[in-house]
């Protein structure tokens, strides 16, 4: 018996043991080793969850613990309630049903793409309390500080009876979640597509996992990073030419991350054609923190790419990746190992350039994807699209960007990450990309947020690239010049039409603004003929048949 006056140091472990004892009694003989049958999932959750628990429900950018999410919506709200949900991505309707059912109360998350509109409505009605909207690295970091999960509901490809997990190409967030949960007295439950005698490789050791549930169906996974080259426009080709010649070649960018979209897909497809014709092979784009975009296949085949580390995988790319271990990170079994936390850190600290798109940019260069009726969150862009203030190693691109920054604001020598926002001045339906005030301000007010949800802050942005040209914000002497540099590439939007012609021409003379013709690019050369692949079928062909696109991308 412990001395009753002695301080107790294992409250949490005792609580976990009580939960495990309750689970053992609820499951009885239905549990064999760590394996629990799917029809006992709800009983298991009711046994291990207590009101107010912090629960990490694995919703990744791509793979989803969908069976466990459905099971969680079926627990008795009288027993399980006031849960505090932690999720990097809100992707499924069940993720929000939990709040309507009275099971969950508070949410801390990163990205809510498909559920953004419903989330905004529910926040407006007071049905859901948001702690904060994070970037991925920020949320993972809090798992180890003040948001450590009591219970983690994760997803893997396969498991053995001892709980060893194979997460395979789409490992994504799983290691970060389990690391935080298993080593701080939490409980880990994994849904798996199949139970096997021996997993192809051990991605998560079995003694970090408490329960394994073979799911009735394979988990849901979304091919988020596939863009059909057939939909790339001539304007996007033109912008990609300007990015390659005006930025990648100019700074000698060797290590980078691309946001997802047709704009960046166009750059990827111009590497083996246009960039090669400029003699840039080996001089740019060697090392990447990037999901395995199918649009990268022609550049990889042309020998442009030395390495790619990925946040997650991409459906259809598995065999191609497995056949290119010099490029991708693969396990002894041959399949890829992704890891969102490490790849985000790589994108933040070890890349010299981020380029991505956005919905709105204001005249200070702040950008946001938030609109009044959608709380979409951030995902990874802010980690990539921010100067890494903690970086200390030098590279030519980083030093040159730092030199340009110091030409306007003298200080001790240091480098600078290149952060490029690439947008057409108007989006579809004539929505202007340049605005006087971001919708994020109104959203913050209506949803009671402490700050407007800015995706990339203006002082982190170094270049804005539109079909009208490139504005180099590093070379702007003051806020007024910066505003005119942005107006000077804002095309026919109200912000663009409001430019001061004299200042803009002066900025152009100084090379702060560069038009296509200033870069020696003839707009008439910007045709789709420059794309190394003009269809999904071309990508399949370029991969030697190894890329197997999901059915929805097959139109032949």
């Amino acid at each position, binding site marked *: 018996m412990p001395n009753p006056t002695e301080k107790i140091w294992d409250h949490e472990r005792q609580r976990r043991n009580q939960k495990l004892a309750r689970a053992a009694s609820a499951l009885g003989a239905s549990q064999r080793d760590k394996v629990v049958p799917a029809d006992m999932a709800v009983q298991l959750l009711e046994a291990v969850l207590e009101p107010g628990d912090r629960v990490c429900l694995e919703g990744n950018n791509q793979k989803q613990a969908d069976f466990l999410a459905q099971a969680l919506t079926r627990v008795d709200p009288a027993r399980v309630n006031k849960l505090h949900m932690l999720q990097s991505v809100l992707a499924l309707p069940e993720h929000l049903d939990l709040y309507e059912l009275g099971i969950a109360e508070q949410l801390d998350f990163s990205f809510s793409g498909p559920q953004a509109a419903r989330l905004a409505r529910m926040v407006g009605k007071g049905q859901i309390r948001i702690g904060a909207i994070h970037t991925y690295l920020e949320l993972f970091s809090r798992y180890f500080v003040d948001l450590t999960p009591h219970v983690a509901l994760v997803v893997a490809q396969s498991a053995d009876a001892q709980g060893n997990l194979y997460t395979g190409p789409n490992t994504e967030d799983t290691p970060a979640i389990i690391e935080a949960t298993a080593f701080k007295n939490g409980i880990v439950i994994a849904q798996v597509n199949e139970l096997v005698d021996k997993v192809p490789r051990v991605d998560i050791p079995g003694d970090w996992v408490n329960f394994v549930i073979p799911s009735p169906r394979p988990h849901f996974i979304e091919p988020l990073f596939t863009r059909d080259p057939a939909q790339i426009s001539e*304007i996007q080709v033109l912008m990609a030419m300007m990015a390659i010649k005006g930025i990648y070649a100019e700074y000698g960018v060797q290590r980078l991350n691309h946001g997802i979209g047709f704009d960046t897909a166009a750059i990827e497809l111009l590497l083996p054609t246009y960039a090669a*014709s400029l003699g840039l092979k080996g001089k740019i784009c060697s090392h990447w923190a990037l999901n395995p975009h199918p649009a990268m296949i022609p550049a990889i085949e042309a020998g442009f790419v030395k390495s790619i580390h990925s946040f997650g995988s991409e459906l259809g790319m598995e065999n191609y990746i497995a056949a290119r271990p010099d490029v991708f990170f693969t396990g002894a079994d041959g399949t890829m190992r992704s890891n969102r936390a490490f790849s985000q850190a790589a994108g933040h600290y070890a890349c010299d350039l981020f380029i991505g798109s956005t919905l709105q940019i204001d005249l200070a260069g702040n950008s946001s994807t938030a609109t009044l009726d959608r709380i979409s969150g951030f995902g990874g862009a802010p980690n990539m699209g921010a100067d890494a203030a903690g970086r200390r190693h030098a590279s030519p691109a980083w030093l040159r960007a730092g030199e340009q920054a110091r030409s306007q604001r003298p200080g001790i020598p240091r480098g600078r990450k290149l952060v490029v926002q690439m947008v057409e*001045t108007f989006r579809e339906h004539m929505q202007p990309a340049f605005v006087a005030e971001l919708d994020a301000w109104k959203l913050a007010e209506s949803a009671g947020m402490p700050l407007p949800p800015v995706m990339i802050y203006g002082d982190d942005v170094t270049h804005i690239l539109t079909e009208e040209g490139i504005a180099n914000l590093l070379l702007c002497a003051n806020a007024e010049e910066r505003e005119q540099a942005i107006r000077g590439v804002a*095309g026919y939007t109200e912000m663009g039409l409001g430019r001061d012609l004299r200042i803009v021409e002066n900025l152009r003379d100084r090379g702060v603004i560069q038009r296509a013709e200033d870069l020696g690019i003839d707009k008439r050369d910007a045709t789709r003929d420059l794309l190394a692949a003009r269809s999904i079928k071309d990508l399949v062909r370029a991969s030697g048949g190894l890329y197997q696109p999901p059915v929805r991308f097959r139109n032949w």
Partner: protein
Amino acid sequence: MTMENLKYRFDGGKPTPGVAAIVGVLGSGNLEVMVEPAALGGACEIEVSTAARGFGAIWQAVMGDFFARHRAGDIRILVNDAGATPAIVSLRLDQAIETYTAKGQMPKQMPKKEK
């Protein structure tokens, strides 16, 4: 949805002979541009039919810049727009006038670049 019709006239261009030409396609986010010769005393007349209403000022600016670039007179341009952005509109106009003045020759092809 009813279409909006917009008309523009720019005087003082240089007479620009050519053969009637049509470029682009009438698909979503795209547009069709037709150019034909017309005895307009050096003027350029442009008629726009667009599904996107309320953007007259932007069309005015796009067309004004187009005329400033080429100063092409004695032509009539008809535009059928299905929600193209100004960038696409400018590109198609440039392609159309180039095809028109090439007098029936094929439009300029991208020079093949070799390694």
